[in-house]
């Protein structure tokens, strides 16, 4: 798997698109969880959200570089 991708001759880390993808997934998940009212039941909603993002991002990287 390439570690860097070239965009018009500039090398960008390959995890950048992965990060953007995890932001999108996180957004979708956020919407579902907000709809279900999960965030109102947890102690620190922002931390939960951050941890979810980290988990998604890590899972994507893990799957990509397997």
């Amino acid at each position: 798997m390439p570690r860097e991708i070239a965009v018009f001759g500039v090398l960008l880390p390959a995890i950048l698109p992965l990060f953007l993808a995890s932001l999108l997934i996180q957004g979708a998940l956020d919407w579902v969880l907000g709809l279900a009212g999960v965030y109102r039941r947890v102690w620190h909603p922002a931390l939960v959200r951050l941890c979810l993002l980290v988990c998604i991002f890590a899972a994507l990287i893990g799957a990509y570089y397997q």
Partner: protein
Amino acid sequence: MTPEPAPAHHNKQPRSAAQTGVHWLALQWRGWTASEGERLIFVAKCMAAAFTALWLAFRLGLDSPNTAMTTTFILALPSSGMVLEKAFYRMLGTVVGCAAALLFVALFPQQAPLLFLALALWTGVCTCGAAMYRNQQSYSFVLAGYTACMIGIPSLDHPTAVFNLAVTRLTEVGLGIIVASVVHDALFPRHANRQVMVTVQARYQRFLTFCGEVMEQRLAPAEVELNHLRFAADIAALESGRAAAFFEAAHSRAHTRQLHAFNHAFMTALTTFYTLHRLTHRLHAAGISPVVAMIEPLDSMLAAALRAELAPGAPAPDWRRVQADLAAGIAAARAALGSVERPVRIDFDTAVELLERFARDMAAFVALYHGLAQQRKMQVSDPLAYHPKTPPGLVLASGVRAASALLAGAAIWYWLDWPYLGNALVMTSIFSALASSSPKPLLLIKGVLIGFVLGAPLAFLTEFWWVIRADDYPQLVLAALPIFALGCYLMTDPRRAAIGVGLTLFGAQVVAPLNQMHYDGEAFLSTELALISGILLPFAIFSVILPEHTMGQKDHVASALWREALGAAKAPLFRLKHRFDNRVRDLLNQLNAAAGPMPNEEARAVVRQGLTLLELGHSVIEMRQLIDASAPSPARAALALCVRQLAAYFRSPDQRHGAAVLSAVLDAGPHVRAALAEEPSPTRKLRLQTALTDLHSIYTSLLDQMPAAPLGEPDHAA
């Protein structure tokens, strides 16, 4: 941030000295955490974000670490929702600005005049856009404008470097945004969501108290106007709080819809209440009328319901009951009134119709409030977003100012050929764009300028006393901490916020270490001088070019209000009422922001004008809706004529057009009455009744506007 009041203790036994001491300490502690503690936590969060971003930028070997640090300072806002909102819009603006810079440099490589013209045009357009929106959406436009300058100007001589510059900028801003969002959202967050609920509750209490006081005639007309101005500001504040809370985890979409609906219901109730209040006021002014005596008990019935609603502990009144009681009261009053002359009958009909409408609006408003307060999910039928409106003259003026600031700066740079002025130019473009969405741009720039001037010696000392001796990162943090901490601390004080912003930005520009430090006193001083002159230029531009064209300037607001009223009579009907309502309130809010807590007589006159136009506009829109829904008939034609005459009056408000409206209204009355008598369907009957009320309120408020107008017999709507 006032300390909480001491809880009352009424212990019978005298307390020991130690107990008193502990109690006193606890009180002091609570007061401190509510005021100074909050501010220090904020400073700590800012510092954590700034130095984490700087460290990461070093670690990742980015080209200009201070951009990442600057971003964290720009995102330093009190609540986590606001930080996330600004982060989102900052990213958006940066991406657009980078794209624009690439385009311009590709189009005009090494052609300074053309490039500067293009950049000036772009900045002007972006600043116009910024003036048209509110909150962070506006910031995103500002950023798109000055990011293009930040990338385009340095790559004037090296067009090939532009892509690298753009990528660097994007990366650094992205890094700063991620760090700032994580820090402000996860460490001791202050939630915008909770603040929105506090605003909602305060609004609810103030509005109910206000209505009660007005109904019992305890407020002078001037106070009523002031209250309306405050409510307009409230509406905008709630909207901006909602926009920030939207980005927080605990905020759901359903909540957004409910808040939109709440704001909408509030505006509707406020307008109805204003019309009702004006009518009662007129009746009182006209002298003894049997209507006043008939209406008073109904008024106090509603006032009692409002008081019961506000009373703590007591069960909330059932508004359906209140409405039913009101209807019964009205029926009794109508029976008691018996047969009277027509003008009295018309006044009475209008007043009771307005009272019923107000009770209906109030019931909706209160229901929405309780839904919000108890976090109940409600099905909100048609929630509509808030529409801002800026007078076009001001939009254009801000664009012209930003563009000419950039052009003037570029000309000076070109002529002096002083390399450091590149920095200055960037500052010029940033602050001429930022200041244009402020009601007092000169005050803002002055604050930032003071911050810069204050920062110059401090930054010099920091750099050449402390930073120069730092060997590793922790020492560097220690060396640079004081100046940034001071800046962030100043930011927490609303009166000195601009100074704090200036100080931190200045520090981040000159002190923030680079990958390869080189300490050059002359270059340092030149950069400092250039930055300060870069902020002096927008100051000069704002005081010279169109100094009267600032946000919320009353003449512009006044003419924009007339144009909105004309729009109410002309524009397509789809969602017109909502748009009209929002825009008029937004204009009043701008007026409030510019006029401050004690508006002068002229500003009050504009408020009065705005409220009257609001009343007229609502009536016109209702009439147009009725016209749209009915088949051709004499009543419809007469109403259409009224609308046309009113549009002409809104276009040029003078005696002649006013008189034409009055006669059209007088003509329309009998036709509508006749149609009402023949109408079988109850829903259409209600709408015709509404149209009659509208005709009456148009007639009377126009009479108020033109005291010298020929007074016709007021049996118009007969």
